[in-house]
């Protein structure tokens, strides 16, 4: 881990001046995309291909470098900067009228309200419905012949006309030897991703950067590959009218859960995974038994708690991409049937080998903790079952499962616990916090710290270790306690991430950005990326000092929060 530190005299610092002249105003008609006209009466979309606008407004996202005083946000253009984020407390993908369905009322979490419900909603809608048109973020998957495969909202078959319109736009541009990547229409962005015979489209007015939306489409495609492999391409080669929907039957819930995770799971844009905090010895014990079964012909063995890794081990030379882990855990967690019994299912890891299936043995030890054993052999079920029994015995004997439960209850790093004074390492290395009360329920803890946050107005941070492909995110605490506030913060991080990684205007080392919601500080080195959120009134020099301390803190507890090279094959 790096020992570099951030100084106030950094030259790369970007000012957070807002763009004073947004070049587009939000328009009234929410879905009047470029040249598409949606006929109100019958809801059929017609594409006006002879109109030169069809070409003229197809904007291949080439943005000029930002001026030195601009925010440096690639996706910022076209949004009215003043007040958008402030007034958008209902910054959900849903339209306002249905906010309450989600159980979130104006930025305040209503504990009694129903949580996010899995599965597709609003199936009765189609492109003629006003409510459908007002949804803030649509995702579509269709075939290259214009047949619908998936739509986030509405019934795919009723949207067949809309789907055909999308195909016509993509194919029309392709006919001219070009590719359509992005269409801006008022405050909507239409992002296209072509993957052979599969077309993916996102229509969004969430002001997320193009790169983020495109990344989300890539994940959506990856999720489809995880379920079916790329062999579906062969079906389209033989038969362009091939209808994929029957093959994906019952997987709505997997896609909608992934789309939901774009709002709350930083792994979706950081391309890194996160670990459940555990004592080094506990994780070692779990790793050892996983290594044991990996040596008996298992390709990958993963022990996870929800979306967090307890330990994972791969066979010699095999390594797992964080995106594959995200898609795999999403698939397992969103499919209710995995919870009810031990399962054996074909799955494909798109980053490992998109062409072929592996077989996953999945077993839940308790409601959150599950074991996944991946193999290439389709008749390995009983062997893997034996492996699982072995793993379970060891985990119980060494108290790993109870430690996992305890860690779940305790949560991870809290900004309130950031050590104020540098302490000797030996003192720090055993506990994430100096004064954690094990008996405290999360609720009581939250109550006791309302309005406090960390030192110098530190509200939250994410630390991503580039070397380990892992990140650690602090627990949310007041003042970022509501679902809406958390989602807004993730969106801000997402913007920060894509602006820091924008090859056109970057690379940058640091960025300090202040708006009416927070002061954000991002710091990228060869070894890590740090994203920190402060009170909007926080002092910059002090914030920088705090960031250095966060890095030191992370370093002090790295054995607990990261999966270190437990396996002998690692380095």
């Amino acid at each position, binding site marked *: 881990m790096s020992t570099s530190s951030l100084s106030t005299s950094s030259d790369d610092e970007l000012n957070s001046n807002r763009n004073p002249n947004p070049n587009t105003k939000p328009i009234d008609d929410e879905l009047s995309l470029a040249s598409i006209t949606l006929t109100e009466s*019958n809801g*059929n*979309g*017609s*594409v*006006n*291909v002879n*109109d030169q606008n069809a070409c003229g407004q197809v904007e291949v996202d080439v943005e000029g470098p930002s001026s030195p005083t601009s925010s440096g946000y690639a996706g910022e253009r076209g949004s009215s900067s003043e007040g958008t984020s402030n007034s958008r407390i209902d910054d959900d993908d849903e339209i306002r009228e249905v906010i309450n369905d989600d159980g979130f009322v104006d930025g305040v979490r209503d504990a009694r309200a129903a949580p996010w419900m899995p599965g597709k909603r609003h199936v009765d809608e189609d492109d003629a419905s006003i409510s459908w048109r007002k949804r803030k973020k649509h995702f579509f998957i269709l*075939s290259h*012949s*214009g*047949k619908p495969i*998936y739509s986030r909202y509405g*019934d*795919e*078959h*009723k*949207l*067949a006309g809309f789907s*055909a319109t999308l*195909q*016509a736009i993509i*194919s*029309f541009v392709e*006919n001219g030897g070009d590719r359509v990547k992005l269409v801006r229409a008022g405050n909507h962005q239409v992002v296209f991703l072509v993957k052979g015979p599969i077309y993916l489209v996102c229509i969004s007015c969430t002001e997320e950067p193009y790169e983020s939306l495109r990344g989300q489409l890539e994940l959506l495609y990856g999720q489809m590959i995880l379920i079916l492999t790329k*062999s579906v391409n062969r*079906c389209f080669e033989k*038969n*362009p*009218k*091939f*209808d994929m929907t*029957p*093959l*994906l*039957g*019952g*997987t*709505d819930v997997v896609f909608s859960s992934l789309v939901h995770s774009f709002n709350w799971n930083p792994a979706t844009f950081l391309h890194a995974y996160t670990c459940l905090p555990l004592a080094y010895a506990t994780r070692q014990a779990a790793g050892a038994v996983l290594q044991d079964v990996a040596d008996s012909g298992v390709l*990958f063995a993963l022990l996870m708690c929800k979306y967090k890794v307890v330990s*994972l081990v791969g066979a010699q030379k*095999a*390594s797992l*991409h*964080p995106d594959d882990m995200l898609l795999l855990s999403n698939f397992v967690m969103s499919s209710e049937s995995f919870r009810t019994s031990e399962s054996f299912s*074909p799955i494909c890891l798109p980053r*490992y*080998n998109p*062409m*072929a299936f*592996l*077989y996953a043995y999945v077993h839940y030890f308790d409601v959150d903790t599950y074991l996944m054993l991946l193999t*290439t052999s*389709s008749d390995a079920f009983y062997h893997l079952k034996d492996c699982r029994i072995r793993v379970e015995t060891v985990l119980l004997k060494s108290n790993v499962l109870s430690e996992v439960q305890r860690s779940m209850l305790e949560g991870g790093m809290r900004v309130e616990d950031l050590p104020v004074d540098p302490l000797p390492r030996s003192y720090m290395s055993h506990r994430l916090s100096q004064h954690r009360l094990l008996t405290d329920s999360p609720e009581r803890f939250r109550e006791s710290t309302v309005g406090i946050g960390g030192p110098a107005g530190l509200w939250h941070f994410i630390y991503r270790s580039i070397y*380990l*492909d*892992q990140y650690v995110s602090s627990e949310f605490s007041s003042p970022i306690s509501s679902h809406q506030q958390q989602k807004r913060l993730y969106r801000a991080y997402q913007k920060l991430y894509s602006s820091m990684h924008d090859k056109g205007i970057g690379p940058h080392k640091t960025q300090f950005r202040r708006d009416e919601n927070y002061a954000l500080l991002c710091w990228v080195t060869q070894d890590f990326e740090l994203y920190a959120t402060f009170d909007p009134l926080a002092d910059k020099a002090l914030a920088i000092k705090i960031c250095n301390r966060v890095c030191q803190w992370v370093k002090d507890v790295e054995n607990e929060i990261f999966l270190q*090279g437990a*396996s002998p094959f690692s*380095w």
Partner: protein
Amino acid sequence: MPSRRRTLLKVIILGDSGVGKTSLMNQYVNKKFSNQYKATIGADFLTKEVQFEDRLFTLQIWDTAGQERFQSLGVAFYRGADCCVLVYDVNSMKSFDNLNNWREEFLIQASPSDPENFPFVVLGNKIDVDGGNSRVVSEKKARVWCNSKGNIPYFETSAKEGINVEEAFQCIAKNALKSGEEEEIYLPDTIDVGSSSQQRSTGCEC
């Protein structure tokens, strides 16, 4: 994705400009007819749910523009069609003569796997005009041509009066469904770790 299995059929409507493609579609989908001519620009898309032999399926109808300047759109529009409807005006010999061009153009652009047996349906439209007195293409002539192209089903229609429109589209749906019946077999491989597994260069520590 629908939980209950439903089929989606892509239907392309082709023919010279002004023969009544859009009117036929509007009559079929919306039960409406307008005397005003409005040229289709590029293509219009309509969907209609149809029940056929206890199965529910959706027709995705691609109503294309007849003008020649739109024909460069070919491949994109024709790809993956389940049925192609050729329309002519019984009062215009030229529109009938052009059926051959439309059919061939479609087969070239869409390049279906079995062009001999690709389902076409031919519609002779506007039989209501002038009480049939201005008609120049006889039913016999049309049927001869259809038979010579592999027994293409033929209907005489009037979009204005709604004559034979429902019947024609029933036939279109039936034929499209038939051609969709031969399913592709989806058979993915399993990874062979020994030979070809792809590794990631910058790895995590597993």
